[in-house]
């Protein structure tokens, strides 16, 4: 009998379902996966090495570019680690703003995930729907920081500035008449919080729309149910966090287990799955979007009632007020020092993690007391999820690889760093 050899197939790096630059070397027996070997690093930019030669605040911009669909959550982990080393408290209003934007980011991330995952599996419409809603949230990013994606809005000690009182307006042009523009500007008449209130009122209806398309869809279920199953024990062993471990039935969420900022004062639930398959992870993430929406509402309520400072008052660490800078000698010195030399962080080491939309995103900083981190290690959730792809796809069909990549919710900015 002649020897039958396995077939080796190269998947990516330029493939629409590779979610960026994943190269998978697949060993196939017929159409069944025997081994999946991911080759990563095509987006490696050496963020950790770069961070060692930049002052602390300069690195915030690099954090945005790690997981480039959940920008502010990355900044959050980095800023929290520095705050831990400096032992400073963030003003309460800034904590609420951070929580609100973390949840906005979670919705942004899950919409991106849902759109691309459904597109990979074969539902084109989802992609268009999801990007429609992302637009509003990106406008919120833009209103608060000036950038639609890479915000660098969180700073050690608080957030860069308070929420704006007005939203930018669309203007009439040769392509859009005044009547059309007025319609577009209808929910932009008030402050950013009013704009977001309008969004939160609409959003649950949108999630219902997505669910009518997918949740009971026969094709969607055939493609996702029992694909990439993980038990609770396996999930722990494989370092899964976030929705990946929750879908396996473990109610593990850092927002509840190690509450940071003001999460312990807010009301929300953690959805968990039972089977740990791709469909459960879909259901968990859908419910998370509703919970995030609920959290945003609570934050808006609080923020509307409680004005106050959004930045720590120690200007040896944070930027001084503009007026002080012009009139006060000390303010001038602080400003000069802040932007020329930065601030020193006391010697020591700290690890801080946030419940990032994808899982546990943490940064480990070793400081020798200088104005730059001595070592910055970024713990990205997608990294350990992708590492498990061989385990998840073994014995599945080739077409299921695409489903598994989608359900992992991987972004190469954070995996390759």
């Amino acid at each position, binding site marked *: 009998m002649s020897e039958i050899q396995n077939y080796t197939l190269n998947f990516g790096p330029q493939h629409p379902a590779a979610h960026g630059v994943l190269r998978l070397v697949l060993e196939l027996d017929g159409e069944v996966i025997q081994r999946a070997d991911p080759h990563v690093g095509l987006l490696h930019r050496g963020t950790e*090495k770069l961070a060692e030669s930049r002052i602390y605040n300069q690195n915030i911009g690099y954090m945005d570019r790690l997981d480039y669909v959940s920008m502010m959550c990355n900044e959050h982990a980095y800023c929290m680690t520095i705050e831990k080393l400096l032992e400073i408290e963030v003003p309460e209003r800034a904590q609420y703003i951070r929580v609100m934007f973390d949840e906005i980011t979670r919705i942004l991330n899950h919409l991106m995930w849902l759109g691309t995952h459904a597109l990979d599996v074969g539902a084109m419409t989802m992609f268009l729907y999801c990007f429609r809603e992302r637009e509003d949230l990106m406008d919120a990013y833009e209103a608060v920081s000036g950038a639609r994606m890479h915000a660098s809005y969180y700073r050690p000690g608080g957030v860069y500035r308070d929420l704006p009182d007005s939203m930018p307006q669309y203007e009439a042009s040769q392509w859009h008449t005044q009547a059309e523009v007025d319609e577009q500007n209808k929910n932009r008449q008030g402050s950013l919080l009013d704009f977001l209130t309008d969004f939160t009122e609409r959003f649950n209806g949108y999630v219902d729309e997505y669910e009518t398309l997918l949740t009971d869809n026969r094709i969607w279920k055939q493609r996702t149910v029992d694909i990439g199953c993980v038990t609770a024990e396996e999930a722990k062993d494989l370092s899964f*966090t976030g929705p990946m*471990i929750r879908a396996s039935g473990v109610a593990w969420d850092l927002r509840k287990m190690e509450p940071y900022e003001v999460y312990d004062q807010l009301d929300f639930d953690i959805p968990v799955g039972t089977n740990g398959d791709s469909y459960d992870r879909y259901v968990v993430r859908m419910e998370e979007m509703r919970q995030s929406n609920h959290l945003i509402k609570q934050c808006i309520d609080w923020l509307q009632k409680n004005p106050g400072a959004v930045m720590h008052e120690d200007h040896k660490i944070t930027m001084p007020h503009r007026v002080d800078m012009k009139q006060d000698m000390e303010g001038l010195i602080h400003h000069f020092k802040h932007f020329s030399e930065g601030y020193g962080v006391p010697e*020591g080491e700290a690890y801080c993690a946030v419940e990032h939309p994808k899982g*546990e995103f943490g940064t480990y900083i070793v400081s020798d007391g200088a104005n*730059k981190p*001595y070592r910055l290690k970024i713990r990205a959730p997608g990294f*350990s999820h992708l590492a498990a792809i061989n385990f998840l796809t073994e014995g599945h069909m080739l077409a299921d690889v695409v489903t598994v990549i989608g359900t992992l919710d991987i972004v190469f900015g954070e995996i390759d760093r």
Partner: protein
Amino acid sequence: MSQYYSELSDKVSTALASIEAVQAVVAHGELTIDISKENIIQICQTLRDHKELGFDTVIDVCGVDYSTYEGSKIHKARYASVYHLLSVTNNHRIRVRTWLDDDFPMVDSVVPIWSGANWFEREAFDMFGILYSGHPDLRRLLTDYGFIGHPLRKDFPMVGQVEMRYDANKQRVIYEPVTIEERINIPRIIRDDNRYAERQGDSA
């Protein structure tokens, strides 16, 4: 928080007493233990299987190169392999650190204990050249195919050593020594800061 971790620190020391007298430090609400590399498998096994500890998840494994460290602390060796462990069951964390020599940084792999450590160790090997003995598949992970050197070592230049371009004559991509120079706009500086003088330093 610190109270909880001091108690946990005692529990860890007691549980590991038969293997090694570990040095445990609590700082910033985090527990760190320094262990010797010979005992790492035994210690990790205990940390995972002990009922009250139950560190069932490895959150992170990373290398640190202390060769240009300018702080006041003195380190036992050039490299450290740092493990961040988490107990999902008991909701607590620990940082385990082991020191590795400059000439041959090698330590036993913890992949047999937590399979999640696989890629973390591959990354630390790639970035620092730390060898994890017993690792099932210790290949480079993030750097280019055929890459030479370990980029996160402090003696590796930030601008790298080679640059790549397409050569029209040879009709292929070629590697050449870098032509750019490292530019430092803001020097690294440690100020003598009396605000932090009284603060209790953490270990290592």
